[in-house]
């Protein structure tokens, strides 16, 4: 019974496909899964916008939306109707084709990432051997769409936003990859299914998630920072900084195209959280051995929910970084730490079992963190400002 509940979606799909001739079953199965993914994540997006507005409201001691439906639950519906009925404006001097394609490319590439994410036991669309590589290839394409949006709009604010976005995303793409490479080093596989399987062991009832190792914890922190920056979320939301750039690269978008950008941002958050869950938090595995009877997909989406809450929490807490701070942070702290983490993961791999590797690896990472934090991240102290007046 419990196994059935765990596999309910898989069984449901098999049951539905049973009505089709054998030669149709494979393509129909893929189409069915794709439709499920494309239907599910926008629904989660709607819930997430509500959650975000409520959460940020509570953080600021407000109530948040509470007019549309009970507790404002129908707010996403109202927002959706509003954006669908709004006029779609394309600036006269905009590059119409690029302007039109940008939001579509964003949404398509963001959704492509889900193809390789295992969302439960046996619940993965394509078990690709190079799944991680595929994911990052798709993730990197979002930069293209952001730049297309900024460039195609022919607007200074849009272009500035796009420039910022490209600078930021390329900087943090490196950190994102570097922090994930340690997982590949340890598991020896790029397949996300295999990576989850490698974490699906328990000692004394506790799971072997990679976050519970020194290099895994460091990697997770770096991944979280880089992931937040990759999805243009606060405090790294410079590309769309409202107070500076109107709305950044999507200044010239209205109506449904704007909604697509919004959707793309949130689905990218789900996607990056899903990958982080898969790599460091054991994917769909239970946090305790005794809880293994709970269906695997509940764990996956539960972890997704928690990471979304953390995203919202961070947004409600941190102010936006300045561009130079952003760059310094990426190149002076995150990247050196990631490089060191590669070394530490290697040490861990070849030092063998025992307490010694725990001590050495933790000490190395902690020391590096303190030293880099002290030397590189020191606030620059400027003296009193001196003015020179024109004669």
């Amino acid at each position, binding site marked *: 019974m419990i196994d059935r509940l765990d596999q309910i979606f898989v069984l449901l799909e098999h049951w539905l496909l049973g009505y089709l001739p054998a030669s149709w079953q494979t393509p129909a199965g893929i189409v069915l899964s794709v439709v499920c993914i494309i239907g599910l994540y926008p629904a989660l997006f709607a819930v997430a916008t509500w959650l975000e507005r409520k*959460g940020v409201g*509570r*953080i*600021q*001691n*407000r*109530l948040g939306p*509470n007019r549309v439906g009970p507790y404002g639950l129908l707010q996403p519906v109202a927002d959706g109707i509003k954006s669908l009925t709004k006029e779609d404006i394309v600036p006269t001097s905009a590059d119409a084709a690029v302007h039109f394609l940008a939001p579509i490319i964003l949404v398509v590439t963001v959704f492509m990432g889900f193809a390789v994410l295992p969302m439960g036991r046996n619940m993965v669309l394509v078990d690709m051997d190079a799944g991680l590589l595929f994911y990052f290839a798709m993730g990197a394409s979002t930069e293209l769409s952001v730049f297309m949006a900024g460039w195609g709009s022919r607007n200074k604010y849009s272009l500035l936003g796009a420039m910022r976005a490209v600078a930021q995303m390329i900087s943090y793409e490196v950190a994102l990859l570097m922090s994930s490479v340690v997982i590949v080093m340890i598991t020896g596989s790029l397949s996300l299914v295999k990576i989850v399987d490698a974490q699906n062991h328990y000692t004394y009832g506790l799971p072997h998630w990679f976050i519970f190792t020194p290099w895994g914890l460091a990697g997770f922190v770096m991944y979280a920072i880089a992931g937040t920056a990759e999805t243009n979320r606060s405090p790294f939301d410079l590309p769309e900084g409202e107070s500076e750039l109107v709305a950044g690269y999507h200044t010239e978008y209205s109506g449904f195209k704007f909604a697509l950008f919004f959707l793309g941002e949130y689905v990218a958050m789900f996607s990056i959280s899903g990958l982080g869950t898969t790599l460091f938090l054991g994917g769909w595995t239970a946090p305790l051995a005794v809880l293994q009877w709970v269906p695997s997909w509940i764990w996956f989406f539960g972890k997704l929910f928690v990471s979304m809450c953390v995203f919202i*929490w*961070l947004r*409600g*807490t*941190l102010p936006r970084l300045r561009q130079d701070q952003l760059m310094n942070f990426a190149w002076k*702290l995150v990247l050196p730490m990631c490089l060191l983490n590669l070394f530490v993961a290697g040490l861990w791999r070849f030092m063998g079992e025992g307490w010694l590797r725990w001590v050495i690896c933790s000490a190395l990472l902690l020391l590096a*963190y*303190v030293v*880099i*934090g*002290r030397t590189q*991240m020191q606030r620059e102290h400027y003296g009193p400002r001196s003015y020179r007046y024109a004669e």
Partner: protein
Amino acid sequence: MLGEGILKGLAETAKNFAGSFVSKERLTTIEYPEERLPLPEASRNFPFLVYDGEDWEKGLRCVACQICEKECPPKCIYIEKSKDKKPDYVGKLQVYPAKFDIDISVCMSCQICVEVCPFEAIKMDTEFELATDDRFGGLLLDRHQLAKSNEYYHKIHPTEAAEVDARLAEEKSKAGAKAKAAAEAAAAKAAVALAGAAPTAAKPAAAAADTPAKPNQGEPKA
């Protein structure tokens, strides 16, 4: 250590998040249409016309002197004088506004009309929910819409209204005393001239009714 501040900030926002569910005092906002904050006494937005008594048309203090119309910087007031006269609060016959329109889409709430009015007839209202779907007719208020009772004025600006009432009462008593004195003088004169010209007695009586309003119009408002 690096990152300490972020953790502190996260703790602070978490405290706010949880606290807003526990204590209502934390919530800084109010549910507007259901709950309202009391308006401060000095609040004002658009002018209205004060009337005394029950009937708004009879009790209107405005005498259509048109000072406010002339002083109004954005020229949002339009007044037409009446042909006939009606008694004002001291009982003197005055013209009244046959038409008194204020276009509140033009009004800039400067209160100059209130400052210049010698009759305490125009005051500032606190009503702010004036949204309408008719942007021309809906925002052009006529004298009936503008007329609000003295009681209403007391309700929205109690101290100011009390001062105004005291001033008006003083003027009224002064006017009454003067009228009395004038009437006595006239009566004495009439008594002297009683023998010769009995029909002329009507004339000083009319003059007595005219005089008391004079200081009222001449003196600037205190």
